[in-house]
């Protein structure tokens, strides 16, 4: 049953995705997007939530911590944040970037094989903390990345002196900027503590060798970029292009760190 809800949510997110692709191709105003895609994605979010809660009730929350469903959890977090922003700022423009990612993450968990096994770790609490905190961290980082892209788009449109109609509904530059920075700041503690929690588990489980695992190295790299991002922003107020490059770098690092689950010998959530 949870799988059915998840698939339903995927289909609804797919509608949102189609809409955002259409919007990119046609370069039409965002109002089209909100009229059609927002209800679809909103409904998808509800099914998604039902699916996650039901899965947790049926199989225990440990099941949510597998690679497979962590993706779905991250997607859910992102959608919830997106919807909150939509309610607050009445803008659907981040959807152009948000919907594709959400769709892919949910799609992967909705169609994947049932091969993942629940993690067999000695300390389940630490693992849960690790995964939950990092998911929030990832969501915040992604949001900040989207904000920096929107910042560039909006800033280009203002500099071109021909404010295209489909951009006229985007939030103001400073609003986008604040949003990205706040997301970054809010995500940082989650990311940091999440990584520490992971290290504690790994230390306990594998001893000092864990450190040379590709997943661990990539995560550290991501964390480093994250710190630099916040520092440049804080010290010299980097915005626009430079900040976007940094954010892109951090995001790519995050994607690799996430994807490393598939190459890492020890970070597979299965018993060694």
């Amino acid at each position, binding site marked *: 049953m949870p799988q059915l809800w998840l698939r339903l949510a995927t289909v609804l997110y797919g509608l949102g995705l189609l809409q955002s692709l259409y919007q990119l191709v046609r370069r039409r105003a965002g109002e089209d997007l909100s009229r059609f895609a927002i209800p679809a994605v909103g409904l998808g979010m509800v099914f998604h939530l039902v699916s996650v809660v039901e899965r947790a009730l049926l199989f225990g929350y440990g099941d949510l911590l597998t690679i497979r469903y962590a993706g779905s959890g991250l997607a859910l977090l992102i959608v919830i944040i997106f919807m909150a922003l939509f309610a607050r700022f009445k803008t659907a423009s981040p959807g152009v970037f948000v919907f594709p990612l959400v769709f892919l993450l949910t799609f992967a968990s909705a169609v994947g094989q049932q091969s993942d096994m629940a993690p067999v770790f000695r300390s389940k609490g630490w693992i849960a903390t690790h995964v939950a905190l990092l998911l929030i961290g990832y969501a915040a980082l992604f949001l900040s990345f989207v904000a920096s892209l929107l910042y560039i788009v909006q800033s280009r449109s*203002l500099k071109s002196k021909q404010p295209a109609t489909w951009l006229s509904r985007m939030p103001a530059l400073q609003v986008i900027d604040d949003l990205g920075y706040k997301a970054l700041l809010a995500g940082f503690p989650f990311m940091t503590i999440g990584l520490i929690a992971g290290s504690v588990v790994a230390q306990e489980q594998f001893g000092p060798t864990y450190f040379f695992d590709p997943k661990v190295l990539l995560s550290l790299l991501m964390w480093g970029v994250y710190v630099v991002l916040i520092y440049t922003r804080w010290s010299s107020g980097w915005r*626009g292009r430079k900040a976007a490059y940094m954010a892109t770098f951090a995001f790519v690092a995050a994607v690799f760190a996430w994807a490393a689950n598939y190459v890492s010998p020890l970070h597979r959530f299965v018993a060694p």
Partner: protein
Amino acid sequence: MNFFVIGVNHKTAPVEVRERFAIPESRLPEATQALTSYPGVEEGMIVSTCNRVEIFARAKNGDCDLHGFVRQYYGFRQGEYEQYTFEHKHLDAVKHVFRVAASLDSMVVGESQILGQVKEAYATARAMGAVQSQLDALMSRAFQVAKKVRTDTQIATSSVSVASVAVELAEKIFGTLSGKSVYLVGAGKMCELAARHLIAHGAKKIYVSNRTYERAVALAKKFQGEAIPFESLYDSVAKADIIISSTGAPHAIFRKEHGEKFLAQRRNKPMFFIDIAVPRDVDAALNDLDGIFVYDVDDLQQVVQSHIGDRRREAERAEALVQEEVLKFQQRLQQADVVPTIVSLQEHLETIRQAEIDRLRGRLGTLTPEQEIAVEALTRGIVNKIMHTPITTLKSAAREGEQATTVVEIVRKLFNLRSAHANQRGQACDAEQPVPVAAAAKINGSSNP
């Protein structure tokens, strides 16, 4: 559909002529009074603004001589003013009213002031009973149409003056202007105007710098701002978020290296340069810096032009919408025209039926209750069968519109209903109770009003 309108507007008459037509607010009630007491006028209303004077009227029957009223009221002679006026009748008048209220007839299409002005004129006329039945229905419909045009099209969403475009752009950059600071370089009129707009939208701190320090002080005083000597211009500009420059300098006073310095001082917080000087005060290269946005007069003008273009496109959609509404309104009025005829037809046949039963009662003798019911059913059945076709014809004529009046006349003639229709209207007016068209249209053929 006895609506008439006569008037002058910015398209038909120059301002010297419009001035002669204009009626000051204090004299509006009296003028409206004069209009409604003019022969042939049943209801009337006058809108008088700086761009237009419009005299709306509904005729008692068929026609009314609004030119006669204009001559009488203003004391014009025949042939001296007609070239400046426009006149619309019936459906065209309805359409005109809708277009005026929806701001499609305005000098700046989509501006919102006119709707308020029409509403005021309506309130005045209504308060004195000059607007009561059909004209009332027309005006309330016009306000709904205006609202619909506003919400369904984007006719009024873009700004069409340089100063308001500047504000709009500033809001696109800074979100809200509240708490933002504005730096005026040069103390000219244009600077002052733009600053006023920005302050009206929440800008807080104003700095003024000018080559002649006294003028800077004078202008700063107006905004409770701070005057800054021209020598310390470059050291102070970074304090401001929005810079409006309009000096008479022959060369750019803000160059790229200045911009880089400002950004460093501001830790890259965005800056918005509005350059309204010709020759320009701000080097266009500044716009290439991340975080600095430069708009000169031409850029602003270009945005204004593109907005005007947008409005024109939206105006076309609005026109189609108005046309649709005119047809709907016409249908409703015709429906309302048909209803009294249907009612009197029913009354007429019912009277005949009763009279015939009474006449025959003596010859029928005493009837059992069953027989009584049978006679009732028989006569009613005949009457209803006879009425069926005329009523459906009337109703469909009202729907189709074109021949409604003809059909109404034929039915009245055939059944000898001449007086009934007139009575209906007479009563409504005597009682001084407005009969809203919508309500009249809702009355179904079967019920007695």
